[in-house]
């Protein structure tokens, strides 16, 4: 989209602060793709605000030459909601980690989604607490051995996509830090969505949880272990696009497209606008049983919180006229003295 504005480049979005992530951290690539994607939005720097909680990932705003708030642990969605309601003219991004958004911040996360505040939330999922040096997180797998679980984690991990769906999110997507083209494209789609868009990014913490997503990151394996979702297209994956997903009752199953038994038309077709049941089914497809879907799971239009909040203000003014304090104070039973 073109505006009269001077065209910006990725470097315009870099702040003057040196970056403090560990060498090799997946956060770098997410930062890079974000900067690469932002100019395409055609917005001036001052119209963009990054809001984060606490965590390695949440240092993100300091590295952006935009407005930003590095808030407190888990509360970024609430801060962002207030900002959007007060300033619907701003483009807001929420940057959060798996602990920030699903551990301490889980409640704000689901309430952000149910309100459908118009902003983009990027969830850096490294399945670990990075900043506090390696305790397990709500997305750590069962049995994960970490600083706080020497004998293995015992709670069942949360699936960010399922939680988002449980909270009726209107836009849900997933990407991978190292899959940079896909990541940039997915961030762009999310930024275009009207309402809350959630992007889970598989992010490697090479210091405390190295290789957690290697299956989805390695060029060698990723075509077999992930499946790019395309709206209206059949669900096909594999280096040679030789496998697909077919529906069997309410169950997805992997089928071969080479043995001639199954044709593309028999496959499950992706529909970003479909009932949430399809999204649910896709969310449940986990490695290694299934290729893990990446891309946009869902993109539907439903009313936006701040639009409605402000809409009520406008219609109240339309109905009752702009309020007059003196009138208000003098309404009802009053009396004069002297």
């Amino acid at each position, binding site marked *: 989209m073109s505006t009269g504005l001077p065209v910006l480049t990725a470097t315009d979005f870099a702040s003057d602060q040196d970056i403090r992530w560990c060498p090799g951290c997946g956060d770098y690539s997410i930062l890079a793709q974000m900067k690469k994607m932002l100019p395409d939005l055609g917005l001036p720097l001052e119209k963009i605000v990054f809001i984060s909680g606490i965590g390695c990932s949440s240092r993100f705003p300091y590295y952006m030459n935009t407005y930003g708030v590095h808030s407190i642990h888990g509360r970024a969605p*609430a801060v*962002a909601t207030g*900002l959007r309601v*007060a*300033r619907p003219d*701003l483009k807001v991004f929420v940057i959060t980690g798996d602990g920030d958004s699903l551990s301490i911040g889980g409640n704000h996360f689901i309430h952000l989604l149910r309100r459908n505040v118009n902003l983009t939330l990027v969830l850096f999922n490294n399945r670990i607490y990075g900043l506090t040096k390696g305790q397990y997180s709500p997305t750590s797998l069962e049995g994960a051995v970490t600083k706080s679980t020497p004998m293995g984690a015992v709670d069942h991990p949360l699936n960010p996509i399922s939680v988002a769906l449980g909270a009726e999110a209107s836009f849900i997507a997933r990407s991978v830090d190292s899959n940079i083209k896909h990541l940039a494209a997915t961030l762009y789609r999310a930024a275009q969505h009207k309402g809350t868009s959630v992007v889970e990014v598989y992010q490697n913490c090479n210091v405390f949880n190295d290789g957690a997503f290697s299956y989805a990151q390695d060029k060698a394996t990723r075509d077999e272990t992930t499946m790019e979702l395309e709206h209206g297209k059949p669900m096909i994956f594999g280096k040679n696009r030789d496998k697909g997903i077919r529906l069997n009752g309410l169950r997805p199953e992997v089928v071969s497209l080479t043995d001639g038994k199954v044709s593309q038309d028999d496959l499950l077709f992706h529909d970003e606008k479909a009932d949430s049941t399809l999204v649910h089914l896709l969310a449940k497809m986990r490695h290694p049983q299934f290729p893990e879907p990446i891309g946009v799971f869902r993109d539907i239009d439903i009313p936006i919180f701040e639009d409605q909040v402000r809409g009520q203000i406008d219609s109240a003014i339309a109905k009752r006229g702009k309020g007059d*304090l003196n009138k208000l104070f003098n309404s009802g039973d009053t*009396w004069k003295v002297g």
Partner: protein
Amino acid sequence: MSTDTPQALTAKQVQVVSGITVRLAGDSGDGMQLLGTQLTNTSALAGNDVATFPDFPAEIRAPRGTRAGVSGFQVQFAAHEVHTPGDTLDALVAMNPAALVTNITDLRHGGLLIVNEDSFEDKDLKLAALTTNPLEEPWVEKYRLAKIPMTKLTRTAVESLGLSVKEADRCRNFFAMGLVYWLYGRDMDATLRFIQAKFSKIPEIQEANERALRAGWAFGETTELFGTTYQVESATLPAGTYRNIMGNQALAWGLMTAAHLSGKELFYGSYPITPASDILHELCKYKNFGVCTVQAEDEIAAICATIGAAYGGAMGVTTSSGPGIALKAEAMGLAVMIELPLLVIDVQRGGPSTGLPTKTEQADLLQLLYGRNGEAPVPVLAARSPGDCFDTAVEAWRIATQFMVPVVILSDGYIANGSEPWAIPDVGALEPIKITHPTAGTSGEKFLPYSRDENLARPWAIPGTPELMHRVGGLEKQNGTGNVSYDADNHEKMVHIRAQKVANISKVIAPQEVFGPAEGELLVLSWGGTYGACHTAVQQAQNAGRNVTHCHLRHLNPFPANLGQILGKFESVLIPELNLGQLRMLIRAKYLVDATGYNRVQGKPFSVTELVDKINEMTTEKSAEKALQSRAG
């Protein structure tokens, strides 16, 4: 009232009295709060000064007829200034046995006891956990008892309307109201208007309530039961247009006015909690004033949303009560660190923990001052009465924006639900609140989000402003640039700047005033909702010739600059508080004054009498003429 001995109920006579204290008590279902409000408005309209004290159970609808279910509303209306709902009752209206036994001890000997005798049957007594009928107890002799079959009389009054018994009985409260109106020569018009408005949709109910009201009045006139009616002349308040106002309402209106005066949109983020919820209920009515209310998922989200709005340039306000305020502590620390203007309002209730949600207390002062990690100072103001909530809100926002700091306002359940006549201000005449947001290019060099003005305030640059992009956050900031800094000296400097900034506020607030001699035997130092009781007690003691002065604080942090001098001028200092001595600790620590505390933690306001007694105990008889001298001089 003067007399203290029961007098025969014979031929009618009008007795002029300077003031009356009445309490209406009944089932929470009986609409006592509604009656109380009506009596209050009517009395205010009659030109009396009034003060009220609603007292209702924590339960929504506690079981009918039980003691737990009793709801009461006390009003004092007088021909002179009143600052409290009154200590003892001149009249008690008890709609059932539970209401009688739970309230009777507050009725003065010789006081008027009006009961609905229809509700004193065995089942009623049982519900009130009574084995005998109190109306037959010897101690009722101490009062002037008026047993009235309100249920029957009301039913007859509305008979022809063909209402169900249940509907008919619901009109009982208006019968009682009518009787009270007659007794005190009140005008029924306002209440009739109210009934018409409220029940316009159900004409027969409207008609029924009107009839019940009139029947009550007529009953008083015709029956032999009452020998006297009472007349309370109108008080001489300062000239102006008045209305009756409740504390939470005044707070809401004050916030709206502050937003208006500063040309800001009011963003209000809150989570319901007793006794603060009514502020939310009030503000959400005024969307056409541009008021933006968000009911958040919890108190943490509420204040965080408010911080987000403040970063965006709005007037951010969040309210709660004790337990919810505790949850806001961490986020308040963030607001201190990022130095944004913000109002955090605590309508205090009985604690600790869930405590006594519908009772009043002053025990959150230290929580608001110190309940955050690290050195995180915030200014704290406290409102002293329902009407004062308005001014306090406006001043708090003035301070917040001038010094770029979150400001705390303390209210309490007593003033939040209490009401008093309020001299309506002319909004146009109020001093505007000037706020400037920096814009690009005002200075050639790089924008410094943590640069300082003469108040040590940093610039409030808001998103959308070209070239002023900057990041704020909870990590220590480098003064000037606002970049994250772990530098030792910078940290110490910032800790001092944040403290000094708050301390500087004492330069802009009005010097503390006192009521009474500027020096002498005893200074009564109080804050917040105890103003009425303390002021009245000091006044009475002064009139009785005691050498005592009242000093009431709105500013708890920082203290007014001249407070130290004031304290130094008195032989002793008494600090009455509805807590275990929180202000007292602050005063002792700061001024090394051996202040005495008078502390009650009973979930209810002070009585004037107990304070007068304490003052008498701490002052000497002979001091009378001393007092007069210094007043003369």
